[in-house]
Structures are given as C-alpha cells and as structure tokens.
C-alpha cells in the first residue's frame, strides 16, 4: 500500500528522451533517493510544445488530452512533468477540458482512453519543495562554494489563462529555497522569469541572442558562478549559446536543479551525466 502512495505518474516529454536524457536520469535518481517511484505513463505522445498551439486549438489541446487520458487510466492521483513547456501545455489543456465540457466531449470522441477526472499535475520544483526536509536531512555535501542565479524562465509560473500557480508568478523563490537547503548561496537577480528565446534560438537567432545576453550579463554582473534551472530548453539554450554570446567573459555552468540536489545527497556527478553539458560543469561541482 505504502508503495502505491509513493508512486507518481511521470510524463518525461520528448526532450527528456533525447537531448536532455540526462535530466530524465537525474529526476529518477533524485526522486528515488527521496523514496518516490516514477511510473512513466505508457505510450505517451508529444504535447505539441509551442508548435501545435500556434497552428490549431483543437490539435494543441487534443495532444495533451490523450496523455491525460492515459495518466488517468494509470490510477495514480498525481503526475510529474519536469519540462516547463510540457508542464504548461498539459496544465492549460486540463483546464480547458474541465471548463468546457462540449470541447471535452469532442476530444473524448477521438480518444481510446478518455479524459474523465482531472489529475494533479506537478512540476519538479513543487515535488522537491514538498520533500525539502528530507533533502536537507539527506544532504551529505554542503555546496557552499556555489553562488547560483535561479532561472525559472517563462512557463513555470506564467500561463495564458487563469491558473493557480505553486509559486509567486513574478518572483518565484522555491528554487532559491532548495539551494539554501543544500548549502549553496543563491544570488538575487533581475532575470529569473525572463525568456531565453526558446525555439527562436533556431528560427530567429538575433532575437534569441538579445534575450540571452541580457540574462547572462546580469548573472555575471551580480557575481554568480552558475545558473540553475528546471527547464530543459532554458538549460540547452544557455548551455549551447553562452560561448557565442560572451566570447571574452567567463562562461557559467548551467545546472539542472536535480544535479545540485542530487550531488548534495551524494549522487555521483558522472552518474547524473553532468559531463554532458555543453558548457563545462564538472569542475565547479567537484570543487565544492
């Protein structure tokens, strides 16, 4: 029985099965240390990310609805979605489906596993915060040399509709709290919920460079020695393009929150594949 209580449905999303596979590994490792088992929902599909909603409402909502139907069929009461974009799209879809029953019926007509009851959808920060006491108890390393700026990005707290959000919309602090629990010294800054440019890094690099350079410049000006984030696209963008933005400046490692929490709890950096970062990230972590 207690096993079932600590089991959470898990929607990794495409990114965590591809370029951010390391994040998938870390989420599983860290949460299992905290006594949580992740049950990946079967045969999930892409949530449509920022593409489906730019072309058609029905398509955008139906893609996430299918996943919600599968999650409901798992019988679990909560689903964790670490990717900010997947989290946002699934939250928006669930809200639409349960506020517009005609729309829900139209989508359900196309689904094998129907959407019936809403499921609690959580991002990784919410789950970690819930276990903060456990984390600080299990923290065998103090990451006191780390001065991270916590980077939340857009989609964790801002929604294009009325939505109950787990953190403060314009000034979230849960990541700072987690950092303090493991001995790091998070630095206050201006760009914690600003946009990294997301897919414009590919389609409109000039725009993305402008957005990212503001983020990187502020982090460096404030004396941070790393970024920490929970969004795989924010991580990849800052990780991949920092070298291009600041050729003369030093480059900061861009950690996933799971890397810092995991490392503090004694998980090996190699095991979490921290060596797969595009901006070197092993040295600072091991220097703690």
């Amino acid at each position, binding site marked *: 029985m207690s096993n079932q209580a600590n089991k959470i449905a898990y929607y990794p999303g495409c990114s965590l099965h591809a370029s951010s596979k390391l994040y998938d590994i870390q989420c599983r490792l860290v949460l299992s240390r905290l006594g949580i088992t992740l049950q990946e929902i079967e045969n999930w599909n*892409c949530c449509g990310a*920022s593409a489906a909603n730019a072309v058609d409402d029905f398509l955008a909502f139906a893609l996430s609805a299918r996943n919600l139907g599968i999650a409901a069929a798992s019988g679990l009461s909560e689903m964790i979605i670490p990717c900010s974009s997947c989290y946002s799209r699934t939250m928006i879809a669930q809200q639409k489906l349960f506020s517009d029953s005609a729309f829900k019926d139209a989508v359900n007509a196309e689904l094998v596993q129907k959407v019936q009851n809403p499921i609690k959808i959580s991002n990784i920060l919410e789950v970690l915060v819930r276990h903060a006491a456990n984390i600080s108890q299990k923290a065998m390393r103090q990451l006191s040399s780390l001065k991270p700026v916590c980077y939340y990005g857009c989609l964790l707290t801002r929604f294009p509709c009325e939505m109950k959000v787990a953190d403060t919309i314009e000034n979230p602090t849960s990541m700072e709290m987690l950092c303090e629990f493991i001995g790091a010294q998070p630095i206050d800054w201006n760009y914690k919920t600003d946009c990294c440019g997301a897919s414009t890094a590919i389609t409109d690099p000039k725009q993305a460079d402008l957005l990212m350079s503001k983020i990187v410049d502020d982090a460096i000006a404030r004396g941070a020695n790393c970024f920490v984030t929970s969004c795989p696209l924010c991580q990849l963008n800052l990780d991949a393009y920092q070298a291009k933005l600041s050729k003369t400046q030093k480059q900061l490692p861009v950690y996933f929150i799971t890397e810092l929490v995991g490392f503090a709890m004694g998980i090996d950096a190699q095991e979490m594949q921290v060596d797969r970062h595009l901006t070197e990230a092993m040295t600072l972590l091991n220097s703690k």
Partner: protein
Amino acid sequence: MPPAHTSYSIEHSSLSLQAIVLLSGHNIHACYQCRRCAAGCPVAEECGEAPDQIIRKLLFSDIKAALRSSLVKQCIACHTCGTRCPNGIQTSRIIEILKQVSHKTEEAACRSTDFHDAFLAVIRRHGRFHEMLGMVLYEVKAGIRDIVRGNVKLLFKEMLNQMRLGIMMMKKKRMHLDATSSKAPELSAFFEKYEGSRNVKSGK
C-alpha cells in the same frame, strides 16, 4: 470614434472582433490602454511593435492590420503581457489565435511557421519529436524559402551554425540518431481534423 477602416470587419466577417473574443476567451474590450503589457514585452523593441498595438487594431476591427503585425510572427509566447494586464486580458493568447488564423490563411509564412510545420510533421509521423529529423526538415523548408528569395548567403550562414551546434551536441551525446517514438493511433485523426480546418480559408 472608430476610424474609417472599421469596414474591414464586414469584409472579413468570419474573422470579426467578436470571433476573436470568443476563440481566445478574452474580453478585448476591457483594455484601457495602460500599456503595462507593452512595458513588459521582451521582443517589442526588436519587433518595433508592442502588444497593446495589436489590441488597439482589433478594437478598431482592423483585423487585417492585426494579422499583419510583426508580433504575430515574432511573439515568443512568454505570457508576460497577460500576467501584467490589470484587466486580465491575456494578449499572448489573443496573438496565439491570430497566429493560428494567419497560419491557416498562409498570410505569415516565415521561419517560425516553417519550424512549427516541421515539428508537427515529425510528431504526426512518430508521435514524438525527433530532434535531428525535425531540424533537417526545418532546414529544408527554410532553405527553400531562402533560395526562392535569393538569400543564399543567409542560408549558408544558417546551415553552418546549425551544423556547428549539431556536432557539439553529438560530441557530448546530447544529440542522437535513434528516435523516440510512440504508437498513438489517435494522432492521425487529430491531424486530419486540423488539416480539414486549414482547407477552409480563414479558419472557423
């Protein structure tokens, strides 16, 4: 007093202001032009246009001008505008609707719509997004557009940048040749519905 071009709403009756209010679920009429959305928009400077200007065009029922706004192409959907609005108007949601309309009527074909098309083509086929396949498809689409427009230099620079990134990611094992996929038979029905709505000019 609305200007003379109010008649646009009659010409494009299927895309009336009322339709956009209904589709987006947001009461555009509540806007009192405080411009907090404009102050928060991270791309307004680069676009030369801010979210409040789209709202203004819509309130004048100048749907055509709203659809032509540079923000419809360049909005990154960060949702800052809606978060800051004292009247709860989610302008990014309204822009989302305009993006959908302009995509269906092919008014705003550009790099970002190429990217969306490539992305969706991959998930239609595989159920999930395969990064390398998606990038190749996108580069081909955008490349053809560049060649047609004679932007060969831009195309060359772009290809070089993407290859550099691809190689860097492969070195660090962040890019893979094998695809993640899922069997999702319902997806073809979703996409057929979408294609159907696309053939009807001007969406709903």
